[in-house]
């Protein structure tokens, strides 16, 4: 499927590059619709990679790349279930999300996240699944999960740990603070910081450059340098589900879902 137009995301293959646009209002909150469409992408990647050498992921929405998991949807769905059933449902959702992200992570295409604005939680994890992150000056990265009594659940910690020093990972994870693009580049997370509104243009230029290289060599280099931490990823799902069973999480989700505060992301 060289072209797809969904409710939350769309993609198109053109000139050897797949461009994946996220466009679910207000800020690409990742819920079940997004996940279902992302699974369609994952199922198409192998076929797409026969014709494309690069995948560029970007947001078509002004506020940012993605605000992360759709916590209101998660809370409302959980409310309709017994706790044990809710935990099982979350585990199933996490396993589906991991399959998508692992597929992107291991794709033979070179993958580029072109980010701006909010890059939070699951959105941050999606960017971390890519080979390169190109950020415009407005980008802001954050794992706010600890504020809800959780850890990132879509591979965030193992992938951060793979890519960055442990002290930096602890800072981002344990404080839950957000960092800007310049800081993200200083710590080695972001490959290029560009002017406001320029991330997609630079990502396209980068993708065009990558197309000049021998394909087999590029794939070999990626496989050599970018191992997928499968064991830690599975452990992350277990820890997330153990935490999700705690009453404090339900209270945290409730507070977030019902908040009219201007800063609901701050506990």
């Amino acid at each position, binding site marked *: 499927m060289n072209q797809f137009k969904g409710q939350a995301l769309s993609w198109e293959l053109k000139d050897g590059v797949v461009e994946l646009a996220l466009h679910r209002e*207000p*800020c690409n909150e990742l819920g079940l619709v997004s996940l279902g469409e992302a699974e369609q992408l994952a199922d198409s990647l192998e076929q797409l990679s026969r014709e494309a050498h690069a995948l560029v992921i970007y947001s078509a929405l002004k*506020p*940012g790349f993605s*605000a992360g998991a759709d916590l209101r949807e998660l809370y409302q769905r959980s409310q309709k279930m017994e706790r044990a059933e809710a935990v099982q449902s979350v585990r199933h959702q996490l396993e589906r999300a991991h399959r998508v992200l692992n597929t992107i992570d291991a794709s033979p295409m070179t993958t580029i996240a072109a980010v701006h*604005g*909010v890059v939070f939680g699951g959105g941050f994890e999606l960017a971390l699944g890519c080979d390169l992150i190109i950020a415009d*000056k*407005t*980008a*802001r990265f*954050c794992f706010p999960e600890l504020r809800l009594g959780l850890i990132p659940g879509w591979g965030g910690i193992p992938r951060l740990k793979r890519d960055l020093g442990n002290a930096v990972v602890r800072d981002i994870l344990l*404080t*839950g*603070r*957000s*960092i*800007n*693009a*310049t*800081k993200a580049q200083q710590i080695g997370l972001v490959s290029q910081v560009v002017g406001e509104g320029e991330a997609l243009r630079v990502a396209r230029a980068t993708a065009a450059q990558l197309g000049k290289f021998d394909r087999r060599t590029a794939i070999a280099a990626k496989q050599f340098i970018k191992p997928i931490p499968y064991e830690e990823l599975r452990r992350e799902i277990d820890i997330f589900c153990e935490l999700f069973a705690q009453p404090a999480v339900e209270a945290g989700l409730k507070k977030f879902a019902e908040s009219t*505060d*201007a*800063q*609901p*992301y*701050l506990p």
Partner: protein
Amino acid sequence: MRTPDQTLDEILGLAATQFKVAREKLTADDDFFKTLGIDSLQALDLLTRLEHHFNVELPDYELQGVSDFRTLAGRIQSRL
């Protein structure tokens, strides 16, 4: 080194420009959420612009409960 008044003045100028509000309508003790009419995502955008402008890092938990320009300026001044 900027004085606290200079810092405050630059914040007001930056906020006015970014959110297209007349500079003279903003005062130090305004609740910027109300005066600028911004939500949490726009507040993060303002935070990012302030960090770049002043070349400082502002952990968002330091801004918890901060809603007026004067207190915001104080937080930034302490990191200059």
